[in-house]
């Protein structure tokens, strides 16, 4: 076994132990990959998004001398050529719609109308293919037309290429640096699948009053798809958890009754469905989830990795600690405005408070963007090793 392969096994073991709520030899540490890396290179954000090989290169460069366990996320989460080819209206990318050093933007629209509910509920996949894809993709607006056919062929090819390239990149990181990905595959809460790209934020919040029964029926229809989507995008892997960015479940989107009736049951069903297949969910609780901790505690032990963003960390530890692996602890703003000293103090505090009896991964709570400073991220990782030995 090479040195990197040995490291990989060691780190995977650390993560697995933490996910099982045990005490590894050291607190696992996450390296947050993000646009911030780019500003320390002579590459533009546009290039980093478009050119996979270059992205892998700059990633390797920055992590070369660091000792951490997990890598969170990817720089080219979305490979723009796939969107460009089909004329996607969902995103704006640097270089084509935005200045070359901007981060991408997501454009939220009500892409599914209230009158689409029934058709969607009856046959979601067909509705998406026939109605949704033409609406959100300009080049695909007239399926069957010459432009649309060409666009679809190109976009699907790009999709397959991007999947392949990102698999190769993570293989390289594993083989050469022993880096373990934080997860494999992605899925959502059914309410978020419905509320993000389909009905949109305003659409779904109004539906709660105007057509609540449709929300329930649609979420019910989405459950098996979100389980299948997770397993497919994870290529069957069950050692690592499946990413789930959770949006509308944060406080204060829904009242407790709404949350319990409309958000939670279908999400719980997805989590239980995955758990029955041996797959955990990387419960990316964006924002503040403090009021719902007791409900989340109803889940089968160890079935999620709970990410602490703006949720009350102490309370999370009290309610979920010991039964679920907790992840996070370092505020994203500290990585921008803090000094390395402040970051170190924070890490020490976090480890004292949250990591003591195991089942914890040290990481930033939210998504780390272009504003973060390298010295602070490095300080987080170093301090994690310094204070994080059990």
């Amino acid at each position, binding site marked *: 076994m090479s040195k990197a392969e040995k490291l990989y096994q060691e780190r995977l073991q650390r993560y697995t132990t933490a996910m099982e709520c045990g005490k590894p030899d050291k607190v696992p540490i996450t390296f947050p990959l993000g*646009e911030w890396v780019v500003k320390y290179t002579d590459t533009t954000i546009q290039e980093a998004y478009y050119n996979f090989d270059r992205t892998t290169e700059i990633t390797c460069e920055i992590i070369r001398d660091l000792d951490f366990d997990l890598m969170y996320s990817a720089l080219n989460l979305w490979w723009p050529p796939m969107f460009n080819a089909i004329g996607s209206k969902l995103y704006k990318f640097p270089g084509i719609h935005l200045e070359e050093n*901007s*981060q991408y*933007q*997501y*454009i*939220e629209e009500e892409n599914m109308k209230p009158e689409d509910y029934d058709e969607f509920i009856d046959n979601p996949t067909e509705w998406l293919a026939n109605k949704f894809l033409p609406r959100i993709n300009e080049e695909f607006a007239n399926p069957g037309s010459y432009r649309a056919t060409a666009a679809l062929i190109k976009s699907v090819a790009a999709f397959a290429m991007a999947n392949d390239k990102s698999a190769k990149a993570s293989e390289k990181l594993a083989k050469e640096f022993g880096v373990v990905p934080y997860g494999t595959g992605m899925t959502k809460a059914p309410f978020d699948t419905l509320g993000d790209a389909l009905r949109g*934020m*305003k659409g779904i*919040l*109004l539906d*709660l*009053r105007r057509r609540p029964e449709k929300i329930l029926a649609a979420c019910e229809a989405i459950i098996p798809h979100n389980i299948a989507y997770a397993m497919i995008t994870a290529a069957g892997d069950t050692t690592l958890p499946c990413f789930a960015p959770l949006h509308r479940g944060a406080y*204060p*989107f*829904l*009242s407790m009754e*709404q949350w319990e009736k409309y958000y939670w049951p279908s999400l719980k069903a997805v989590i239980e469905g995955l758990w029955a297949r041996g797959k955990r969910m990387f419960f990316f609780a964006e*924002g503040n989830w403090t009021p719902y901790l007791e409900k989340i505690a109803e889940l089968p032990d160890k079935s999620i990795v709970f990410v602490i963003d*703006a949720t009350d960390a102490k309370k999370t530890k009290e309610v979920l600690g010991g039964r679920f692996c907790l992840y996070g602890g370092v505020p*994203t*703003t500290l990585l*921008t*405005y803090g000094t390395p000293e402040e970051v170190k103090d924070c890490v020490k505090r976090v480890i004292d408070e949250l990591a003591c009896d195991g089942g914890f991964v040290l990481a930033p709570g939210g998504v780390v*963007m*272009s*504003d*973060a400073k390298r010295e602070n991220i490095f300080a987080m990782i170093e301090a994690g090793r310094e204070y994080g030995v059990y």
Partner: protein
Amino acid sequence: MLADTLSKAMAELEEEQVLEQVKERLGGGVAPLAIVKTLQEGMVEVGNRFQSGEYFLSELIMAGEIMKGAMDILEPHLSGESGEHKGTIVIGTVKGDIHDLGKNIVIMLLKGSGYNVIDLGVDVPKEKFVEALQETKAPLVGMSVLLTSCQEAMKETIEAIRGAGLDTRVIIGGNYIDETVKNHVGADYYATSATDGVKVAAEVFGA
């Protein structure tokens, strides 16, 4: 407690009742502006209930929708009547950021409290802020930012405003905003809730 049945229906989010009463009152000769004012009292109550944790975002969005429906009925009758208001506030989400829910809530509450609010939308370049401020002479500008990566854009916008010789008070708001960010970007006030924004407006306008 709200005395007026229309304000109450608004606060309770009774859409049909609100629209019915608006039409009734219009038909009965009540001044459109008086009706708007009554509706706004209901909106303020909605804001208070949100602040106290009784209402959630879904209720706020619904309130905004009902208000919009009512204004659609009222607007044709409002033309010509110059509404008196407490003052003008310009507000927008800064360049690079397209999150607008928080901003829209702030606007709703500010309007509800009687301010004239100019909404610049999302992804607003600094030039547009400066232009709007020069045009309206608004004494207060609000900037919303959710993405930490766009806090720098806020700083640049504030510099541009100062550079244009304007001494407009600046309030910034969003989920990751705190004292440190406020000082870094050079704002006068910061808010992490919409009601804080209303308080600051009251201070600035002495209302």
